[in-house]
């Protein structure tokens, strides 16, 4: 248990939050309602999943939501102005995201530049590019492609974004915890120097993780386009902080070397339940951020205290 303190902390908080919400709010026991609310979190959830291995490797990607916005704007522009079939644009989204992620990967992985600064730079660059392309306007997507979050598996509440999220969680969990590449990610995050001397291709591991983050952001762009029906340059602005909050809340060390996909999944569920609970209680979204911030700090302090005993 000592090694997984953070996961136990966030799991415990999740139980408490769920019990309190279910006791106070009758609607909370309605599964359909919970699944419906969960769509709001799926894009952030996807980003958080992809950020987990990256943060385990000791890096950070602040530009992921800017990639999401830029890819969305490019896809919608291709369809609206150049008449490219929109289905094709959606398929292009992850590829575009991968390309943008590769720029981060090159600068951080190959050139050894600090990821915090590089991704602040590319965040401004990518969102700026989206702003140049779209200006202040909203580019609509064809009605046929809207509403993917209303498509569910027959006779269940699992909607498509949720299924993609679950699939990605399984895939990344396997990658991080069951493969040789996953072990290399932990090695890089624990000590890049030691990893290099042990023959781990540090630069290439980091490069691939940034491409992964970009690809998933591109996928998120397609989902968000379908959910909102419009592409704007300021779509998903600030969500990168929500995603990082979830990853860190789930027990991933911001210094790298420690963290699990299970922790991130639990933390996302916790954030979702707290937000939904506060929302039902009539507390505005602008104030909810304070609760999430306090939760983050409380969880880290509690984990620190338990670990020291």
């Amino acid at each position, binding site marked *: 248990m000592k090694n997984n303190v953070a996961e136990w902390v966030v799991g415990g908080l999740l139980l408490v939050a769920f019990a309190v919400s279910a006791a106070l709010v009758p609607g909370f026991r309605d599964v359909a309602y919970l699944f419906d609310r969960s769509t709001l979190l799926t894009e952030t959830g996807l980003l958080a999943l992809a950020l987990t291995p990256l943060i385990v490797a000791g890096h*950070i990607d602040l530009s992921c939501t800017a990639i999401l916005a830029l890819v969305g704007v490019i896809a919608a522009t291709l369809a609206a102005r150049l008449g490219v079939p929109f289905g094709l644009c959606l398929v292009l989204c992850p590829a575009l995201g991968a390309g943008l992620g590769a720029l981060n990967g090159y*600068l951080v992985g190959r*050139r*050894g*530049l*600090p990821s*915090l*600064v*590089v991704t*602040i*730079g*590319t*965040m*401004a*660059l*990518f*969102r*700026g*590019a989206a*702003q*140049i392309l779209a*200006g*202040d306007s909203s580019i609509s997507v064809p009605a046929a492609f809207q509403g993917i979050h209303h498509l569910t598996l027959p006779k269940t509440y699992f909607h498509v974004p949720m299924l993609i999220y679950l699939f990605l969680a399984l895939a990344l969990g396997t990658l991080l915890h069951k493969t040789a590449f996953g072990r290399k990610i932990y090695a890089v995050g624990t000590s890049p120097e030691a990893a290099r001397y042990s023959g781990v291709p540090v630069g290439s591991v980091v490069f691939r993780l940034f491409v992964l983050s970009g690809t998933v952001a591109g996928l998120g762009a397609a989902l968000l386009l379908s959910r909102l029906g419009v592409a704007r340059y300021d779509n998903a602005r*600030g969500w990168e*902080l929500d995603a*990082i*909050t979830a990853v*860190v809340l789930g027990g991933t*060390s*911001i*210094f790298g070397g420690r963290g699990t996909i299970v922790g991130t999944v639990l933390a996302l569920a916790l954030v979702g339940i707290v937000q939904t609970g506060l929302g039902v209680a009539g507390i*505005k979204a*602008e*104030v*909810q*951020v*304070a*609760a*999430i*911030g*306090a939760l*983050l*700090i409380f969880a*880290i*302090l509690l984990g*620190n205290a338990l670990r020291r005993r």
Partner: protein
Amino acid sequence: MTRRELPLLVALALLVGVVGGIQPRFFSLDNLKSILLWVPLLAVVALGQMTVILTRGVDVSVGAILALAGMGTALVLRDHPNLNLFLAALLSTALGAVLGAVNGGLVALGRVPAIVATLGTLGIYRGLTFLISGGRQVSEYELPRGLASWSNEGPFGQNLFPWVVLLALVCAGAMQVFLTRTRGGRTLYALGGNPDAAAWHGLPVRSATFWNYVLCGAGAGLAGILYASRYGTVNPATIGTGFELLVIAAVVIGGVSVFGGVGSVPGVLLGCLLLGTINVALSVLSIAATWQLAVYGAVILLAVLFDDLSARRLRRTLTGEETL
């Protein structure tokens, strides 16, 4: 003048030369004034952020501190219009210092990583800003008229050189003396250069870290009232949003290394000035405002690439060979 300030000055001179050559209107009083007005707000926050990054930390809550301190002060001024404005400035700074002390306590005593602690307080301070204002803005007519004059009038009669610029220069001077001439300043450089060595050397690592965040918060708090002076209106949804990234960008462009221990006050000031000049240059060249963000991004990337190249060259001259 070190390796860093000179290239920045050259870049700034080139920028001014090229833009002024294309569009002589760039040198008009109005444009110079808008550059000068743009910089102080950024500079007082950047000076505090600089000492945090110097010690391998980062404070992503500065925009939220600016918002909460600025909103708190604006509300007090709305309800007590006769309050002395200097007291109001002190109040804003003190509010910021208290909020910074919370960050400092979490990082120095709670051992929460800096980026995580300040990410958490960012949310808390933003939420509080919204709570204390009830989601409503404080409008220009509700604030004392004297406040705006800080940004409009100056010691030399003409409004070219407003008071806020003087204030930023005084802050920069004080910071320069603190960092280069006092024990506290040397401690911060030592802490950033090698935290373990600093601790083994018997330097007060914990208290230095704590006061570092207090100082950073105080700068952001002061910027809160400067924001109210500059823009007139204080809106809880827009005040200081994303400002932390602009500040970190200015600090990094100014040559402060996120690996700790490297950076200077003149460099940071030049970083702020460069961002401000780009901002005004774009509008003078009638480049759409939509290009601004992308240009900032490109400048940040160029600055880190430049740092990397000069660090490699230095290593080559020191070791006589290419490492890595």
